Protein backbone atom coordinates (compact mmCIF):
# COMPACT_ATOMS: atom_id res chain seq x y z
CA UNK A 1 0.00 0.00 0.00
CA UNK A 2 1.17 3.49 -0.84
CA UNK A 3 -0.02 6.30 1.40
CA UNK A 4 0.17 10.06 0.97
CA UNK A 5 0.18 12.17 4.11
CA UNK A 6 -0.11 15.93 3.73
CA UNK A 7 1.26 17.83 6.72
CA UNK A 8 1.21 21.47 7.77
CA UNK A 9 3.72 23.36 9.83
CA UNK A 10 2.13 25.25 12.73
CA UNK A 11 3.54 27.35 15.54
CA UNK A 12 3.92 25.52 18.86
CA UNK A 13 0.30 24.58 19.75
CA UNK A 14 1.01 24.56 23.48
CA UNK A 15 1.87 28.24 23.26
CA UNK A 16 -1.01 29.32 21.04
CA UNK A 17 -1.77 32.05 23.57
CA UNK A 18 1.58 33.66 22.69
CA UNK A 19 0.87 34.37 19.04
CA UNK A 20 0.58 38.08 18.38
CA UNK A 21 -1.59 40.18 16.17
CA UNK A 22 0.53 42.53 14.04
CA UNK A 23 0.21 46.25 14.91
CA UNK A 24 -1.83 46.93 11.76
CA UNK A 25 -4.28 44.20 12.77
CA UNK A 26 -3.91 42.51 9.39
CA UNK A 27 -1.78 39.57 10.32
CA UNK A 28 -0.78 37.14 13.04
CA UNK A 29 2.83 36.46 13.93
CA UNK A 30 4.26 33.59 15.90
CA UNK A 31 7.73 35.08 16.14
CA UNK A 32 9.72 33.58 18.99
CA UNK A 33 7.70 30.37 18.96
CA UNK A 34 9.05 27.11 17.63
CA UNK A 35 7.51 25.37 14.60
CA UNK A 36 5.95 21.99 14.87
CA UNK A 37 3.98 19.60 12.71
CA UNK A 38 0.24 20.12 13.15
CA UNK A 39 -0.49 17.44 15.80
CA UNK A 40 -3.34 15.79 13.87
CA UNK A 41 -1.18 15.58 10.75
CA UNK A 42 1.55 14.00 12.83
CA UNK A 43 -0.98 11.41 14.03
CA UNK A 44 -1.72 10.84 10.35
CA UNK A 45 1.96 10.15 9.69
CA UNK A 46 2.08 7.71 12.60
CA UNK A 47 -1.09 5.96 11.39
CA UNK A 48 0.28 5.70 7.85
CA UNK A 49 3.52 4.18 9.09
CA UNK A 50 1.66 1.71 11.31
CA UNK A 51 -0.43 0.67 8.30
CA UNK A 52 2.67 -0.02 6.22
CA UNK A 53 4.92 -1.91 8.61
CA UNK A 54 5.27 -5.10 10.52
CA UNK A 55 5.09 -3.55 13.97
CA UNK A 56 6.97 -6.02 16.15
CA UNK A 57 9.59 -6.75 13.46
CA UNK A 58 9.97 -3.06 12.58
CA UNK A 59 9.88 -3.95 8.88
CA UNK A 60 8.48 -1.68 6.20
CA UNK A 61 5.89 -3.43 4.01
CA UNK A 62 4.49 -0.43 2.15
CA UNK A 63 5.29 3.10 1.22
CA UNK A 64 4.51 6.45 2.84
CA UNK A 65 5.29 9.85 1.44
CA UNK A 66 4.63 13.18 3.12
CA UNK A 67 3.77 16.43 1.37
CA UNK A 68 3.73 20.00 2.54
CA UNK A 69 3.37 23.50 1.18
CA UNK A 70 5.77 25.89 2.80
CA UNK A 71 9.03 27.80 2.74
CA UNK A 72 12.50 26.19 2.61
CA UNK A 73 12.89 25.62 6.35
CA UNK A 74 9.79 23.44 6.55
CA UNK A 75 12.25 20.73 5.44
CA UNK A 76 12.93 20.26 9.17
CA UNK A 77 9.39 18.98 9.72
CA UNK A 78 9.55 16.81 6.60
CA UNK A 79 12.85 15.26 7.78
CA UNK A 80 11.19 14.34 11.06
CA UNK A 81 8.54 12.37 9.13
CA UNK A 82 11.31 10.66 7.15
CA UNK A 83 13.03 9.75 10.41
CA UNK A 84 9.75 8.28 11.66
CA UNK A 85 9.80 5.94 8.68
CA UNK A 86 8.30 7.72 5.67
CA UNK A 87 10.09 6.86 2.42
CA UNK A 88 9.90 10.22 0.68
CA UNK A 89 8.97 13.85 1.19
CA UNK A 90 7.73 16.50 -1.20
CA UNK A 91 7.84 20.22 -0.50
CA UNK A 92 5.95 22.70 -2.60
CA UNK A 93 7.34 26.20 -2.24
CA UNK A 94 4.69 28.54 -0.78
CA UNK A 95 4.12 31.20 1.85
CA UNK A 96 1.28 30.79 4.36
CA UNK A 97 -0.40 33.97 3.14
CA UNK A 98 -0.77 32.42 -0.34
CA UNK A 99 -2.83 29.54 0.95
CA UNK A 100 -6.43 28.83 1.69
CA UNK A 101 -8.13 25.42 1.85
CA UNK A 102 -8.78 25.52 -1.87
CA UNK A 103 -5.20 26.27 -2.92
CA UNK A 104 -3.94 23.50 -0.62
CA UNK A 105 -6.53 21.01 -1.88
CA UNK A 106 -5.83 21.82 -5.55
CA UNK A 107 -2.09 21.37 -4.98
CA UNK A 108 -2.55 18.08 -3.16
CA UNK A 109 -4.78 16.88 -6.00
CA UNK A 110 -1.90 17.46 -8.44
CA UNK A 111 0.46 15.47 -6.24
CA UNK A 112 -2.10 12.67 -5.98
CA UNK A 113 -2.31 12.46 -9.76
CA UNK A 114 1.47 12.26 -10.08
CA UNK A 115 2.04 9.73 -7.31
CA UNK A 116 -1.16 7.65 -7.44
CA UNK A 117 -1.28 6.61 -3.77
CA UNK A 118 -3.94 4.17 -2.50
CA UNK A 119 -4.85 6.34 0.42
CA UNK A 120 -4.51 9.94 1.57
CA UNK A 121 -4.45 10.45 5.33
CA UNK A 122 -4.78 13.97 6.74
CA UNK A 123 -5.23 15.31 10.25
CA UNK A 124 -8.85 16.15 11.04
CA UNK A 125 -8.00 19.87 11.30
CA UNK A 126 -5.06 22.17 11.81
CA UNK A 127 -4.70 23.66 15.26
CA UNK A 128 -3.97 27.16 13.92
CA UNK A 129 -6.58 27.80 11.22
CA UNK A 130 -9.01 25.10 12.43
CA UNK A 131 -11.00 25.16 9.21
CA UNK A 132 -11.33 21.43 8.67
CA UNK A 133 -11.98 21.68 4.93
CA UNK A 134 -9.01 20.34 2.97
CA UNK A 135 -9.77 16.60 3.19
CA UNK A 136 -13.34 17.00 1.97
CA UNK A 137 -12.52 19.48 -0.81
CA UNK A 138 -9.63 17.26 -1.93
CA UNK A 139 -11.87 14.18 -1.99
CA UNK A 140 -14.34 16.05 -4.14
CA UNK A 141 -11.74 17.34 -6.59
CA UNK A 142 -10.45 13.79 -7.02
CA UNK A 143 -13.96 12.29 -7.01
CA UNK A 144 -12.93 9.95 -4.19
CA UNK A 145 -14.84 8.74 -1.13
CA UNK A 146 -14.13 10.53 2.15
CA UNK A 147 -14.07 9.46 5.78
CA UNK A 148 -13.45 12.20 8.32
CA UNK A 149 -12.82 12.06 12.09
CA UNK A 150 -11.45 8.54 11.80
CA UNK A 151 -10.55 6.92 15.11
CA UNK A 152 -9.53 3.47 13.84
CA UNK A 153 -8.45 1.95 10.52
CA UNK A 154 -8.16 -1.65 9.54
CA UNK A 155 -6.82 -3.13 6.31
CA UNK A 156 -5.99 -6.64 5.18
CA UNK A 157 -3.22 -7.30 2.64
CA UNK A 158 -4.48 -7.29 -0.97
CA UNK A 159 -7.94 -6.04 -0.04
CA UNK A 160 -9.03 -3.01 -2.10
CA UNK A 161 -10.78 -1.33 0.81
CA UNK A 162 -10.25 -0.21 4.40
CA UNK A 163 -12.63 -0.38 7.32
CA UNK A 164 -12.83 2.74 9.43
CA UNK A 165 -14.42 3.81 12.68
CA UNK A 166 -15.58 7.42 12.62
CA UNK A 167 -16.40 9.39 15.74
CA UNK A 168 -19.60 11.31 15.05
CA UNK A 169 -22.25 13.15 17.06
CA UNK A 170 -23.87 10.70 19.43
CA UNK A 171 -21.81 7.63 18.62
CA UNK A 172 -19.47 5.89 16.23
CA UNK A 173 -19.98 4.79 12.64
CA UNK A 174 -18.23 1.84 11.06
CA UNK A 175 -17.79 2.01 7.33
CA UNK A 176 -16.07 0.15 4.55
CA UNK A 177 -14.36 2.54 2.15
CA UNK A 178 -12.91 1.52 -1.23
CA UNK A 179 -9.46 2.78 -2.09
CA UNK A 180 -8.25 5.18 -3.23
CA UNK A 181 -9.87 7.27 -0.51
CA UNK A 182 -9.28 10.42 1.51
CA UNK A 183 -9.48 10.12 5.26
CA UNK A 184 -8.87 12.51 8.14
CA UNK A 185 -7.88 11.22 11.57
CA UNK A 186 -8.54 12.26 15.15
CA UNK A 187 -6.21 11.76 18.14
CA UNK A 188 -7.87 8.37 18.80
CA UNK A 189 -5.94 6.93 15.87
CA UNK A 190 -2.99 6.74 18.28
CA UNK A 191 -4.78 4.12 20.37
CA UNK A 192 -2.57 1.08 20.90
CA UNK A 193 -4.62 -1.11 18.52
CA UNK A 194 -6.37 1.59 16.47
CA UNK A 195 -4.49 0.72 13.29
CA UNK A 196 -4.61 -2.87 12.03
CA UNK A 197 -2.98 -4.02 8.82
CA UNK A 198 -3.25 -7.81 8.90
CA UNK A 199 0.54 -8.17 9.10
CA UNK A 200 1.26 -6.69 12.50
CA UNK A 201 -0.51 -9.16 14.86
CA UNK A 202 -3.93 -7.82 15.91
CA UNK A 203 -2.98 -8.15 19.57
CA UNK A 204 0.23 -6.17 19.19
CA UNK A 205 0.08 -3.04 21.32
CA UNK A 206 1.71 0.16 20.17
CA UNK A 207 2.63 2.49 23.02
CA UNK A 208 -0.73 4.18 23.50
CA UNK A 209 -1.24 7.84 22.60
CA UNK A 210 2.30 8.24 21.38
CA UNK A 211 3.85 9.19 18.11
CA UNK A 212 7.05 7.17 17.65
CA UNK A 213 10.33 8.44 18.92
CA UNK A 214 13.01 8.96 16.28
CA UNK A 215 16.41 7.73 17.45
CA UNK A 216 19.63 9.17 16.03
CA UNK A 217 20.33 6.41 13.50
CA UNK A 218 16.87 7.01 12.02
CA UNK A 219 17.55 10.73 11.81
CA UNK A 220 20.86 9.99 10.04
CA UNK A 221 19.12 7.62 7.65
CA UNK A 222 16.44 10.25 6.97
CA UNK A 223 19.06 12.67 5.68
CA UNK A 224 19.64 10.34 2.74
CA UNK A 225 15.97 9.90 1.86
CA UNK A 226 14.56 11.85 -1.09
CA UNK A 227 13.09 15.28 -0.46
CA UNK A 228 11.64 16.62 -3.70
CA UNK A 229 11.05 20.31 -4.23
CA UNK A 230 8.35 21.71 -6.48
CA UNK A 231 6.63 25.00 -7.16
CA UNK A 232 2.96 25.84 -7.52
CA UNK A 233 3.73 27.18 -11.01
CA UNK A 234 5.34 24.00 -12.30
CA UNK A 235 2.43 21.97 -10.91
CA UNK A 236 0.06 24.34 -12.70
CA UNK A 237 -1.99 25.04 -9.59
CA UNK A 238 -4.72 27.68 -9.74
CA UNK A 239 -3.60 29.93 -6.87
CA UNK A 240 -6.69 32.10 -6.61
CA UNK A 241 -8.09 32.27 -3.10
CA UNK A 242 -11.78 32.12 -2.26
CA UNK A 243 -11.54 33.57 1.21
CA UNK A 244 -10.02 36.84 2.40
CA UNK A 245 -8.84 37.02 6.00
CA UNK A 246 -8.49 40.76 6.33
CA UNK A 247 -8.37 41.51 10.06
CA UNK A 248 -7.49 39.89 13.35
CA UNK A 249 -8.68 40.78 16.85
CA UNK A 250 -7.86 39.61 20.34
CA UNK A 251 -10.60 37.44 21.85
CA UNK A 252 -12.94 39.08 24.35
CA UNK A 253 -11.20 39.12 27.73
CA UNK A 254 -12.81 37.51 30.75
CA UNK A 255 -13.07 39.71 33.78
CA UNK A 256 -10.66 38.76 36.53
CA UNK A 257 -12.07 36.26 38.97
CA UNK A 258 -11.49 35.76 42.66
CA UNK A 259 -10.10 33.01 44.84
CA UNK A 260 -12.38 31.71 47.53
CA UNK A 261 -11.02 30.21 50.72
CA UNK A 262 -13.53 27.46 51.38
CA UNK A 263 -16.21 25.27 49.85
CA UNK A 264 -18.81 27.07 51.97
CA UNK A 265 -17.84 30.47 50.54
CA UNK A 266 -17.84 29.02 47.04
CA UNK A 267 -21.36 27.68 47.40
CA UNK A 268 -22.58 30.97 48.93
CA UNK A 269 -21.09 32.92 46.00
CA UNK A 270 -22.59 30.54 43.42
CA UNK A 271 -25.99 30.80 45.07
CA UNK A 272 -26.18 34.48 45.99
CA UNK A 273 -23.77 36.28 43.67
CA UNK A 274 -23.62 34.28 40.43
CA UNK A 275 -27.07 32.75 41.03
CA UNK A 276 -26.23 29.60 39.12
CA UNK A 277 -27.24 26.98 41.68
Amino acid sequence: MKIMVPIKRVSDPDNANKVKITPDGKGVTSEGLSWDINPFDLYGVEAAIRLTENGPKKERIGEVFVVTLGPQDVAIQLRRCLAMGAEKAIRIEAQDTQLDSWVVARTLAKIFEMEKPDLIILGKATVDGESNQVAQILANILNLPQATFVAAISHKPQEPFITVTREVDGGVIKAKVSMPAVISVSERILGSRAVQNGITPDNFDYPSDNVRYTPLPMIKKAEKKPLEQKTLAELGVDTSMKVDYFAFLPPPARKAGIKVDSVETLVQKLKNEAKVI
Partner: protein
Amino acid sequence: MARTLIVGEMFEGKVRKPTLCGVTFALKLKELKGAPFDILLPGKGSKEGAMEVAEFGAERVFYTEAKEYESYKAESYAPLVAGVVKKVGYDTVCATANIYGKDLMPRVAAILDAGMASDITQVEVSGSETIYQRPIYAGNVIAKLKIKTPISIVTVRQTDFPPCETKSGKSAVEEIPAEKPLTSAVKVEILGFEKTQSTRPELTEAKVVVSGGRGLKAKENFKMIEDLADLLGGAVGATRAAVDAGMVPNELQVGQTGKIVAPDLYIAVGLSGAIQHLAGMKGSKVIVAINKDEEAPIFSVADYGLVADLFQAVPKLIQEIKRVKE
Protein backbone atom coordinates in the same frame (compact mmCIF):
# COMPACT_ATOMS: atom_id res chain seq x y z
CA MET B 1 -30.87 38.40 -4.35
CA ALA B 2 -29.74 37.39 -0.94
CA ARG B 3 -31.31 34.16 0.24
CA THR B 4 -30.12 31.67 2.83
CA LEU B 5 -30.44 27.89 2.84
CA ILE B 6 -30.15 26.03 6.14
CA VAL B 7 -29.03 22.44 5.85
CA GLY B 8 -30.87 20.62 8.64
CA GLU B 9 -30.10 17.27 10.18
CA MET B 10 -32.20 14.23 10.99
CA PHE B 11 -31.02 11.73 13.60
CA GLU B 12 -32.85 8.45 14.19
CA GLY B 13 -35.99 9.78 12.58
CA LYS B 14 -36.07 13.06 14.52
CA VAL B 15 -34.92 16.58 13.78
CA ARG B 16 -31.62 17.15 15.49
CA LYS B 17 -31.67 20.22 17.71
CA PRO B 18 -28.58 21.90 16.20
CA THR B 19 -30.67 22.37 13.04
CA LEU B 20 -32.20 25.32 14.91
CA CYS B 21 -28.76 26.92 15.35
CA GLY B 22 -28.92 27.47 11.59
CA VAL B 23 -32.26 29.22 12.08
CA THR B 24 -30.68 31.59 14.60
CA PHE B 25 -27.99 32.44 12.04
CA ALA B 26 -30.47 32.83 9.17
CA LEU B 27 -32.71 35.11 11.26
CA LYS B 28 -29.66 37.24 11.98
CA LEU B 29 -28.91 37.51 8.24
CA LYS B 30 -32.55 38.33 7.59
CA GLU B 31 -32.31 41.15 10.12
CA LEU B 32 -28.99 42.39 8.71
CA LYS B 33 -29.71 42.23 4.99
CA GLY B 34 -33.30 41.19 4.57
CA ALA B 35 -32.41 37.73 3.27
CA PRO B 36 -35.31 35.27 3.43
CA PHE B 37 -34.42 31.69 4.26
CA ASP B 38 -35.42 28.11 3.53
CA ILE B 39 -34.61 24.86 5.30
CA LEU B 40 -33.53 21.61 3.65
CA LEU B 41 -34.11 18.47 5.69
CA PRO B 42 -32.97 15.20 4.14
CA GLY B 43 -33.34 11.79 5.70
CA LYS B 44 -35.69 9.30 7.28
CA GLY B 45 -38.53 10.95 9.17
CA SER B 46 -37.96 14.28 7.47
CA LYS B 47 -41.59 14.56 6.31
CA GLU B 48 -42.70 14.82 9.90
CA GLY B 49 -39.54 16.72 10.80
CA ALA B 50 -40.33 19.32 8.15
CA MET B 51 -43.66 20.08 9.87
CA GLU B 52 -41.77 20.61 13.08
CA VAL B 53 -39.25 23.09 11.67
CA ALA B 54 -41.94 24.83 9.59
CA GLU B 55 -42.74 27.12 12.50
CA PHE B 56 -39.56 29.19 12.64
CA GLY B 57 -40.09 31.73 9.89
CA ALA B 58 -38.57 29.95 6.89
CA GLU B 59 -40.36 30.59 3.60
CA ARG B 60 -40.05 26.98 2.53
CA VAL B 61 -38.99 23.73 4.10
CA PHE B 62 -37.78 21.07 1.66
CA TYR B 63 -37.65 17.44 2.68
CA THR B 64 -36.86 14.11 1.08
CA GLU B 65 -37.13 10.63 2.49
CA ALA B 66 -35.64 9.03 -0.63
CA LYS B 67 -33.66 5.89 0.17
CA GLU B 68 -30.39 7.58 -0.85
CA TYR B 69 -30.62 9.61 2.34
CA GLU B 70 -31.52 6.86 4.79
CA SER B 71 -28.02 6.76 6.16
CA TYR B 72 -25.83 9.81 5.92
CA LYS B 73 -22.99 9.95 3.41
CA ALA B 74 -21.33 13.17 2.31
CA GLU B 75 -21.16 11.67 -1.18
CA SER B 76 -24.97 11.57 -1.48
CA TYR B 77 -25.96 14.49 0.76
CA ALA B 78 -23.56 17.05 -0.74
CA PRO B 79 -24.94 16.81 -4.31
CA LEU B 80 -28.49 17.07 -2.92
CA VAL B 81 -27.63 20.31 -1.11
CA ALA B 82 -25.75 21.64 -4.14
CA GLY B 83 -28.68 20.73 -6.40
CA VAL B 84 -31.17 22.71 -4.29
CA VAL B 85 -28.76 25.66 -4.16
CA LYS B 86 -28.49 25.66 -7.96
CA LYS B 87 -32.23 25.25 -8.56
CA VAL B 88 -33.54 27.82 -6.08
CA GLY B 89 -30.57 30.19 -5.96
CA TYR B 90 -28.89 31.05 -2.66
CA ASP B 91 -25.98 33.27 -1.78
CA THR B 92 -25.49 31.70 1.66
CA VAL B 93 -25.68 28.06 2.66
CA CYS B 94 -25.29 27.22 6.33
CA ALA B 95 -25.18 24.29 8.71
CA THR B 96 -24.15 23.83 12.31
CA ALA B 97 -20.50 23.12 13.06
CA ASN B 98 -21.15 19.71 14.59
CA ILE B 99 -19.64 16.62 12.98
CA TYR B 100 -22.44 16.50 10.39
CA GLY B 101 -21.86 20.10 9.26
CA LYS B 102 -18.09 19.76 9.44
CA ASP B 103 -18.09 16.63 7.30
CA LEU B 104 -20.71 17.71 4.78
CA MET B 105 -20.30 21.42 4.11
CA PRO B 106 -16.75 21.49 2.70
CA ARG B 107 -17.88 18.89 0.16
CA VAL B 108 -20.86 21.11 -0.71
CA ALA B 109 -18.44 24.03 -1.07
CA ALA B 110 -16.27 21.91 -3.36
CA ILE B 111 -19.19 21.01 -5.64
CA LEU B 112 -20.34 24.63 -5.81
CA ASP B 113 -16.81 25.98 -6.23
CA ALA B 114 -17.49 28.22 -3.24
CA GLY B 115 -15.48 29.69 -0.40
CA MET B 116 -16.28 28.57 3.11
CA ALA B 117 -16.11 29.99 6.64
CA SER B 118 -16.00 27.21 9.24
CA ASP B 119 -17.28 27.43 12.79
CA ILE B 120 -18.17 31.13 12.80
CA THR B 121 -19.06 32.94 16.02
CA GLN B 122 -20.36 36.22 14.57
CA VAL B 123 -21.71 37.73 11.39
CA GLU B 124 -22.04 41.38 10.42
CA VAL B 125 -22.98 43.19 7.23
CA SER B 126 -21.09 46.27 6.10
CA GLY B 127 -22.44 47.82 2.90
CA SER B 128 -22.68 44.99 0.41
CA GLU B 129 -20.23 42.80 2.28
CA THR B 130 -20.94 40.05 4.75
CA ILE B 131 -18.17 39.71 7.31
CA TYR B 132 -17.68 36.63 9.44
CA GLN B 133 -15.73 36.18 12.65
CA ARG B 134 -14.20 32.90 13.71
CA PRO B 135 -11.75 31.91 16.42
CA ILE B 136 -8.35 30.61 15.33
CA TYR B 137 -5.23 29.53 17.29
CA ALA B 138 -7.35 27.72 19.90
CA GLY B 139 -9.48 30.79 20.49
CA ASN B 140 -6.51 33.08 21.09
CA VAL B 141 -7.18 35.17 17.97
CA ILE B 142 -10.45 36.14 16.33
CA ALA B 143 -10.19 36.35 12.55
CA LYS B 144 -12.43 38.48 10.37
CA LEU B 145 -13.02 37.20 6.88
CA LYS B 146 -14.95 37.76 3.70
CA ILE B 147 -15.86 35.14 1.15
CA LYS B 148 -15.06 36.14 -2.42
CA THR B 149 -17.23 33.68 -4.34
CA PRO B 150 -20.90 34.36 -5.28
CA ILE B 151 -22.01 31.58 -2.93
CA SER B 152 -20.81 31.46 0.68
CA ILE B 153 -20.74 28.25 2.68
CA VAL B 154 -20.85 28.68 6.44
CA THR B 155 -20.92 26.50 9.52
CA VAL B 156 -21.96 28.16 12.77
CA ARG B 157 -20.72 27.47 16.27
CA GLN B 158 -23.53 26.15 18.46
CA THR B 159 -22.54 28.11 21.53
CA ASP B 160 -22.68 31.42 19.65
CA PHE B 161 -25.78 30.65 17.58
CA PRO B 162 -27.86 28.72 20.12
CA PRO B 163 -30.91 26.80 18.84
CA CYS B 164 -33.77 29.18 17.98
CA GLU B 165 -36.61 28.81 20.47
CA THR B 166 -39.01 31.45 19.22
CA LYS B 167 -41.56 30.35 16.68
CA SER B 168 -42.53 32.80 13.97
CA GLY B 169 -44.52 32.26 10.79
CA LYS B 170 -45.50 29.06 9.03
CA SER B 171 -43.39 27.75 6.15
CA ALA B 172 -44.57 26.01 3.02
CA VAL B 173 -43.48 22.37 3.16
CA GLU B 174 -42.37 20.76 -0.11
CA GLU B 175 -41.11 17.32 -0.93
CA ILE B 176 -38.15 17.36 -3.30
CA PRO B 177 -36.81 14.58 -5.52
CA ALA B 178 -33.53 12.82 -4.85
CA GLU B 179 -30.42 14.08 -6.56
CA LYS B 180 -27.94 11.76 -8.25
CA PRO B 181 -25.26 10.85 -5.70
CA LEU B 182 -21.59 11.37 -6.57
CA THR B 183 -20.05 8.32 -8.20
CA SER B 184 -17.86 7.99 -5.11
CA ALA B 185 -20.99 7.30 -2.98
CA VAL B 186 -20.92 3.60 -3.86
CA LYS B 187 -17.34 3.46 -2.58
CA VAL B 188 -18.59 3.93 0.99
CA GLU B 189 -20.62 1.23 2.70
CA ILE B 190 -21.98 2.02 6.16
CA LEU B 191 -21.58 -1.10 8.29
CA GLY B 192 -23.17 0.13 11.47
CA PHE B 193 -23.77 2.85 14.01
CA GLU B 194 -23.11 2.40 17.67
CA LYS B 195 -24.96 4.92 19.77
CA THR B 196 -23.49 6.40 22.90
CA GLN B 197 -25.67 5.64 25.88
CA SER B 198 -26.08 8.38 28.43
CA THR B 199 -28.79 9.45 30.80
CA ARG B 200 -27.28 12.89 31.24
CA PRO B 201 -27.94 15.95 29.07
CA GLU B 202 -25.86 16.48 25.91
CA LEU B 203 -22.60 18.25 26.70
CA THR B 204 -23.26 20.97 24.15
CA GLU B 205 -26.77 21.61 25.41
CA ALA B 206 -26.33 21.34 29.20
CA LYS B 207 -26.75 24.39 31.44
CA VAL B 208 -24.14 22.99 33.81
CA VAL B 209 -20.99 21.07 32.93
CA VAL B 210 -18.70 19.45 35.49
CA SER B 211 -15.34 18.43 34.01
CA GLY B 212 -12.51 16.40 35.41
CA GLY B 213 -8.88 16.14 34.38
CA ARG B 214 -5.74 14.21 35.10
CA GLY B 215 -6.03 15.18 38.78
CA LEU B 216 -8.84 12.66 39.19
CA LYS B 217 -6.12 9.98 38.85
CA ALA B 218 -8.43 7.00 38.18
CA LYS B 219 -11.67 6.01 36.49
CA GLU B 220 -13.41 5.25 39.81
CA ASN B 221 -12.83 8.77 41.00
CA PHE B 222 -14.91 10.18 38.15
CA LYS B 223 -17.90 8.94 40.16
CA MET B 224 -17.78 12.10 42.24
CA ILE B 225 -17.72 14.26 39.10
CA GLU B 226 -20.82 12.38 37.93
CA ASP B 227 -22.50 12.79 41.32
CA LEU B 228 -21.85 16.52 41.27
CA ALA B 229 -23.12 16.80 37.68
CA ASP B 230 -26.26 14.80 38.51
CA LEU B 231 -26.93 16.95 41.55
CA LEU B 232 -26.88 20.04 39.32
CA GLY B 233 -28.71 18.39 36.40
CA GLY B 234 -25.59 18.83 34.31
CA ALA B 235 -23.36 17.00 31.89
CA VAL B 236 -19.97 15.43 32.57
CA GLY B 237 -16.94 16.63 30.63
CA ALA B 238 -13.27 15.77 30.65
CA THR B 239 -9.90 16.85 29.39
CA ARG B 240 -8.03 15.02 26.67
CA ALA B 241 -5.59 13.73 29.31
CA ALA B 242 -8.45 12.08 31.21
CA VAL B 243 -9.82 10.57 28.00
CA ASP B 244 -6.38 9.35 26.89
CA ALA B 245 -5.91 7.76 30.31
CA GLY B 246 -9.14 5.82 29.71
CA MET B 247 -10.95 7.42 32.66
CA VAL B 248 -13.96 8.44 30.55
CA PRO B 249 -15.30 7.81 27.05
CA ASN B 250 -13.98 9.90 24.15
CA GLU B 251 -17.21 11.80 23.54
CA LEU B 252 -16.90 13.59 26.87
CA GLN B 253 -13.80 15.47 25.77
CA VAL B 254 -14.14 19.24 26.01
CA GLY B 255 -11.68 21.37 24.11
CA GLN B 256 -10.37 22.58 20.80
CA THR B 257 -10.54 19.07 19.44
CA GLY B 258 -13.53 17.87 21.42
CA LYS B 259 -16.81 19.57 22.23
CA ILE B 260 -17.09 23.33 22.49
CA VAL B 261 -19.33 24.22 25.42
CA ALA B 262 -20.62 27.45 26.95
CA PRO B 263 -22.93 26.52 29.83
CA ASP B 264 -24.20 28.87 32.55
CA LEU B 265 -21.90 27.11 35.00
CA TYR B 266 -18.69 25.21 34.26
CA ILE B 267 -16.94 23.47 37.13
CA ALA B 268 -13.37 22.43 36.32
CA VAL B 269 -12.01 19.86 38.72
CA GLY B 270 -8.43 18.67 38.86
CA LEU B 271 -7.52 20.02 35.46
CA SER B 272 -4.73 22.46 34.82
CA GLY B 273 -6.30 24.36 31.92
CA ALA B 274 -4.18 23.51 28.88
CA ILE B 275 -4.72 25.85 25.95
CA GLN B 276 -6.58 23.16 24.03
CA HIS B 277 -9.01 22.68 26.92
CA LEU B 278 -9.57 26.40 27.50
CA ALA B 279 -10.49 26.74 23.81
CA GLY B 280 -13.50 24.52 24.44
CA MET B 281 -14.94 26.14 27.54
CA LYS B 282 -13.82 29.70 28.10
CA GLY B 283 -17.08 31.03 26.67
CA SER B 284 -18.92 29.61 29.73
CA LYS B 285 -20.81 32.20 31.74
CA VAL B 286 -19.50 31.29 35.19
CA ILE B 287 -16.37 29.21 35.62
CA VAL B 288 -15.36 27.51 38.85
CA ALA B 289 -11.94 25.91 39.18
CA ILE B 290 -10.87 23.50 41.87
CA ASN B 291 -7.19 22.60 41.77
CA LYS B 292 -4.50 22.15 44.36
CA ASP B 293 -1.91 23.95 42.23
CA GLU B 294 -2.54 27.65 42.65
CA GLU B 295 -0.42 28.40 39.58
CA ALA B 296 -2.66 26.30 37.28
CA PRO B 297 -3.68 28.31 34.17
CA ILE B 298 -7.33 27.35 34.72
CA PHE B 299 -7.46 29.96 37.49
CA SER B 300 -6.76 32.69 34.93
CA VAL B 301 -10.20 32.13 33.36
CA ALA B 302 -12.07 31.15 36.54
CA ASP B 303 -14.60 33.48 38.15
CA TYR B 304 -14.26 31.50 41.36
CA GLY B 305 -11.10 29.59 42.14
CA LEU B 306 -10.65 27.23 45.04
CA VAL B 307 -7.13 26.06 45.76
CA ALA B 308 -7.77 22.72 47.39
CA ASP B 309 -7.35 18.97 47.19
CA LEU B 310 -10.23 17.87 45.00
CA PHE B 311 -10.66 14.60 46.91
CA GLN B 312 -11.70 16.61 49.94
CA ALA B 313 -13.29 19.59 48.21
CA VAL B 314 -15.65 17.79 45.82
CA PRO B 315 -17.43 15.56 48.39
CA LYS B 316 -17.76 18.61 50.61
CA LEU B 317 -19.09 20.66 47.69
CA ILE B 318 -21.73 18.00 46.98
CA GLN B 319 -22.75 18.04 50.65
CA GLU B 320 -22.85 21.82 50.82
CA ILE B 321 -24.91 22.20 47.62
CA LYS B 322 -27.37 19.62 48.92
CA ARG B 323 -27.61 21.61 52.14
CA VAL B 324 -28.34 24.98 50.49
CA LYS B 325 -30.75 23.38 48.04
CA GLU B 326 -32.95 22.07 50.85
